[in-house]
């Protein structure tokens, strides 16, 4: 199935998604990767607000290349999501609805995705130019000193994504290879 989704995302809107479905996502997406996650945890530890409203938000694990003059953004494919695993259940409990990245997540993240009715979506790894095509605007909203790791607010239209982890325990990284291998039997 293919779904059209708009941010902010509700539990109800995400409930029909199943691992392997494709999504065209439009609206606002925030970027955050390793260093930004560490700083977000420091803010939460101090009881301070995050740089954006996390409830219903979509976060894209990406560190883009610098844009050339006249471009909105440089190459902008996903980074490996597993490095954010230790921070993720806490953000999901605060309402983070959608993570965009690539690569395996740990059991705690998978359980938290199910508990919170969230999703983890794949952007195409290594497809920096193709993923950039769906990004219409880009603005740094926190920690410019982090360079490519600064938090950015992106406006995206029909960003092409694939459901990796769904709210029902589905995991494309297990079911996809299993289905292919089964087809050979």
């Amino acid at each position: 199935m293919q779904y059209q989704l708009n941010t902010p995302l509700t539990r109800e809107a995400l409930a029909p998604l199943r691992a392997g479905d494709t999504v065209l996502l439009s609206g606002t997406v925030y970027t955050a990767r390793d260093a930004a996650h560490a700083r977000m945890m420091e803010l939460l530890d101090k009881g301070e607000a995050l740089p954006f409203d996390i409830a219903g938000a979509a976060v894209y694990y990406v560190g883009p290349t610098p844009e050339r003059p006249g471009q909105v953004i440089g190459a902008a494919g996903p980074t490996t999501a597993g490095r954010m695993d230790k921070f993720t259940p806490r953000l999901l409990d605060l309402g983070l609805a959608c993570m965009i990245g690539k690569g395996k997540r740990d059991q705690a993240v998978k359980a938290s995705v199910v508990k919170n009715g969230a999703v983890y979506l794949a952007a195409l790894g290594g497809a920096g130019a193709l993923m950039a095509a769906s990004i219409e605007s880009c603005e740094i909203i926190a920690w410019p000193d982090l360079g490519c790791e600064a938090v950015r607010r992106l406006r995206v239209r029909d960003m092409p994504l694939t459901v990796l982890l769904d709210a029902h325990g589905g995991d494309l990284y297990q079911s996809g290879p299993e289905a292919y291998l089964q087809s050979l039997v």
Partner: protein
Amino acid sequence: MSVRELKAGAITRAVEQLCLRANLTLPDDVHNAMQRAQDAEPWPLAKQTLGLLRQNEQDALAKNLPICQDTGMACVFIELGQDVHITGGALRDAVNEGVRRGYVGGYLRKSITGDPLRRRNTEDNTPAFLTVDLVPGDRCRITVAPKGAGSENMSRLGMLKPADGVQGVKDFVLETVRLAGSNPCPPIVLGVGVGGSFDKCAALAKHALLRGLDIPNPDPYYASLEWELCDAINALGIGPQGFGGATTCLGVAIEQAPTHVACLPVAVNINCHVTRRASAEL
């Protein structure tokens, strides 16, 4: 034998241009391997995914964008003829200046942290990860092979026992690929080092990634092992992006070296489908 003078500035200019070429265009052998994989892939989702990855390569060319946003560590390999005399500056400085100009002027990402624990970005992607090999002759061959971290982080080294033999090497390689799964952006390319010492083995694996995918190991024993490993990896079913399919690995390159009677080191350096390298000879 006369000595040929080579200006450091020429090395800087070459490295600058190679950083750009490597990040914006794939080598022909990798491009062709992706095309062959897409043509041969029987699993529909995998075929579609390979098509999108090839579309990305075209988009990068059309929009003057890097193929992947992780423009990597600037791994620079220089085969320096022993009859070359570099003038007007130090070789390492010349290489670093080329990386600086290429990454800053070329809108490439700066991904290097000057200290591994205190983690302040150097903001110009220096230092280069430089390997110099002194060779006969009066030429200077430079290869820039930007290396992304998603695949680098999935690489492993094992100090096997000699009794583990070739089966132990095969098991270690397959275990490494299984553990990596979707993380290194499959379809992957593997550089494998066998033998040497702890440090030399890792260097062999990295150097193996410089070899074209269409060029087998010159030793038929190792060439056969490369094909066998590639087939075994593709039988795992991980597929492009880890979504499942027949195409998990585009090629395996092994480099072997003499080792101690008590040692059997094996190193696996994983590269992604954006296996980048560009060379020039001065």
